[in-house]
């Protein structure tokens, strides 16, 4: 039995907002043993980050601990003042944040930033601090650390920046490290490397770690104990195995179901009770196009070069038939967004051609494509639902916009009926239509974005990471919605994503992109089960999968 390092007892945290006091954390009780890694999992707004901030006393001015105790080595953190507090922050416990680039000082060399952190807590000479900083860069496995000492944050990749953050966080050998979404926003392969590193360092130094994440798979891979939070409370605490095989709480059940696994299908993403009605849709077999039907979309040797720079996309060719779903996967910088925008005719390709339904559209300038009769046949769903709706348009206006522009409808009853019909198809409650985007949740905004894209009944829908900014439970619903739309309306989907699990479930075929070129393509199932290239294999292996043993199968 190891020593208890942190004991959170009935913690309450409130924020004062313009709508009065909001309770973000309402009665969290949690213990962390020395040296263990605890996963704190929940969706956005569950209070998991606030719990972390309260523990390190980094709550912003509007937040206040209104009840409960946080005992760190028997000392109540919430009552610490002055020097005691400074000793605690950084030296005894430290924190890693979600966006490493924003957390680093952009105008100071990283070596100096690490040395600064050391000098804050230790009375040693500057040279000694620099020597220690160099050691830390070695510890976080940054290549060529001597040269990197003088690098600035913008010269490093996101993964490198996070390593520097880890180096700063461990510089004073804290007993507890709180990692708040440390790998969100990093590519899957980088995510795995950074998390492996973090786990190794924690184990080697005997540091306890709280891993705050929305990703159940990630927590399951690295933690031996997971606490699930929902609306400010811990609803369940168990080992990953127990959590996945026999989830007790209804919320955990939903979360576990919604987290994609190596073998899950779209229809598995909801709990049994919610599954009814979906089976009929799944069983609707797609009508195979008659033999000899020309493809809906044919892309030939597409290339894009931006001013002066190297090619963002080179020699990209693909075909899609009507109602087919194709996944376009790759890490950031692979050119997948550029490709999708060229196919959508929002930017012009430098070379190559795009043939849609037998007509060449690659040479129509993107600035003129809005007049093309094919504009309404190719629609797009954009990445971040929070940014893809005009802040001055209500949900109704957003959905009505393409109908008025592309279908020539005028304001009136007919338009209202069409908008309501679209809203119903995406499962958006009609009473939300008069709302502005900021009055909608992320999932509701995503639905508005999809409703807008399908309003004119397009034949090809390009989706640019439509679920990347969403919680898993919302993602599950959106994926089902897309799958249903495809089956019911025979819309072809080009699904751009870095999330291989999602692509595997939704797409018949998958194309893997790297540095602007196609690495591998084929049937999704075959490609994921038996990748032919090393790169694809690396991508597939990096996905944090949830163990799906026989126990889980039995539970379902």
């Amino acid at each position, binding site marked *: 039995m190891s020593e208890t390092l942190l004991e959170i007892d009935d913690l309450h945290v409130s924020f004062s907002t*313009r*709508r009065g006091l909001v309770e973000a954390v309402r009665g969290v009780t949690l213990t962390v043993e020395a040296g263990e890694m605890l996963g704190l999992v929940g969706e956005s707004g569950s209070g998991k980050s606030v719990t972390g901030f309260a523990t390190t006393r980094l709550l912003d001015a509007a937040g206040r601990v209104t009840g409960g105790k946080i005992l760190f080595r028997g000392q109540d953190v919430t009552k610490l003042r002055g020097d005691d507090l400074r000793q605690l922050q950084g030296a005894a416990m430290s924190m890693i944040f979600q966006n490493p680039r924003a957390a680093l000082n952009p105008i100071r060399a990283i070596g100096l930033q690490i040395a600064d952190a050391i000098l804050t807590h230790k009375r040693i000479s500057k040279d000694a601090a620099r020597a220690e900083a160099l050691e830390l860069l070695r510890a976080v496995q940054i290549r060529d650390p001597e040269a990197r000492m003088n690098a600035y944050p913008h010269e490093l990749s996101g993964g490198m920046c996070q390593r520097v953050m880890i180096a700063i966080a461990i510089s004073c050998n804290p007993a507890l490290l709180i990692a708040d979404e440390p790998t969100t926003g990093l590519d899957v392969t980088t995510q795995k490397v950074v998390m492996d590193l973090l786990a190794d360092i924690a184990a080697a130094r005997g540091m306890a770690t709280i891993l705050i994440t929305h990703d159940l798979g990630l927590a399951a891979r690295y933690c031996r104990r997971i606490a699930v939070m929902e609306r400010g409370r811990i609803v369940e605490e168990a080992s990953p195995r127990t959590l996945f095989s026999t989830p007790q709480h209804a919320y955990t059940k939903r979360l576990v179901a919604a987290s994609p696994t190596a073998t899950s299908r779209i229809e598995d993403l909801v709990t049994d009770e919610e599954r009814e009605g979906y089976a009929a849709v799944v069983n609707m077999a797609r009508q195979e196009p008659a033999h000899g039907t020309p493809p809906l979309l044919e892309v030939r040797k597409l290339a894009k070069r931006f001013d002066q720079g190297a090619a963002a996309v080179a020699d990209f060719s693909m075909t899609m038939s009507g109602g087919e779903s194709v996944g376009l996967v790759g890490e950031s910088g692979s050119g997948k967004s550029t490709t999708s*925008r060229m196919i*959508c005719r*929002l930017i012009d390709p430098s070379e190559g051609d795009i043939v849609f339904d037998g007509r060449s559209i690659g040479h129509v300038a993107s*600035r003129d494509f*809005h*007049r093309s009769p094919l*504009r*309404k046949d*190719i*629609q*797009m769903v*954009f*990445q*971040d639902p929070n*940014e*893809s*709706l*005009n*802040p*001055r348009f209500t949900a109704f206006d957003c959905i009505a*916009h*393409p109908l008025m*522009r*592309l279908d020539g409808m005028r304001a009136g009853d007919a338009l209202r009926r069409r908008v309501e019909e679209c809203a119903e198809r995406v499962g958006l409650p009609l009473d939300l239509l008069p709302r*502005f985007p*900021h*009055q909608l949740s992320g999932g509701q905004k995503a639905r508005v*974005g999809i409703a*807008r*894209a399908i309003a004119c009944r397009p034949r090809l829908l390009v989706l640019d990471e439509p679920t990347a900014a969403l919680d898993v439970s919302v993602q599950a619903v959106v994926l089902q919605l897309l799958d249903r739309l495809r089956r019911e309306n025979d819309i072809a989907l080009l699904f751009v994503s870095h999330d291989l699990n999602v692509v595997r479930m939704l797409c018949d075929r998958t194309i893997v992109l790297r540095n602007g070129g196609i690495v591998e393509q084929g049937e999704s199932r075959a490609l994921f089960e038996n990748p032919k290239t090393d790169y694809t294999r690396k991508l597939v292996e990096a996905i944090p999968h949830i163990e799906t043993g026989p126990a889980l199968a039995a539970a379902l």
Partner: protein
Amino acid sequence: MTSATLRHSVWILRGNPLTAVAAAGVTLFILIAIFGPWIVPYDPIVSNVSEALQPPSAAHLAGTDQLGRDVFSRLIIAARLDLAIAVSAVGISFVIGAVVGAFCGYAGGKLDRGVGRFVDVMMAFPLFVLAMAMVAALGNRIENIVIATAIINLPFYIRFARAEVNVRRNVGWVEAARACGESHFSVVLRFLLPNILPAMAVQISLNLGWAILNAAGLSFIGLGVKPPTPEWGIMVAEGARFISTGRWWLVAFPGLALMMAVLCFNLLGDGMRDILDPRMRT
């Protein structure tokens, strides 16, 4: 204005009494500008030498000037001219500046660089001196004060609109608008411009105060409005001759009117930002 907007405005004003006071002040100035000629107790132009240079009293609330004209009446009549100059000048520079700036910010490239350098050159001039030179060259008329004031305000609007549009040009809803069949042209005019309005409104309100000061300043140094037309700047200029003999009211009241007008517009600018920003609505 829908009832929701109205309710929201009331809510904002309640939480921010200073804005409410400023709004009331601006409304008062506008009412005075409109109804001035009907509420003044005396004729602002006709002189009455027998009552020259009288200190403030019940009959003459702000005293009389060297020609025996009632200062209070002149202040009230002057409001219309001063506000008209400021509003039309700011209106012109806002419309031109916002459109030019928005297109530059959206298009980028050569157009943006060209206009950007031109604006830099303009801002390198002392702007008030530039306005003086323009009025002197174009002729001493009120239209020319408006034009000069509009031109020296222009760089601020261009820069402001450019920066605001530039950060939004690649945002999802702009691309979505294009996918919905909007041309680049209408994306700028119908999507980006309305979205930068809240930020621009603040600039407009702050600028109105500055434009009033500018017009008064031009008149003060003898350019633009000519006596005997009542105008706050001229009144300060004429009154300044008498301040050494203790006739403070000739300068103090027009100065106070100027200060209050500028202050009200500036305070209102801050308040307006909150009201016009739909994200503040919950």
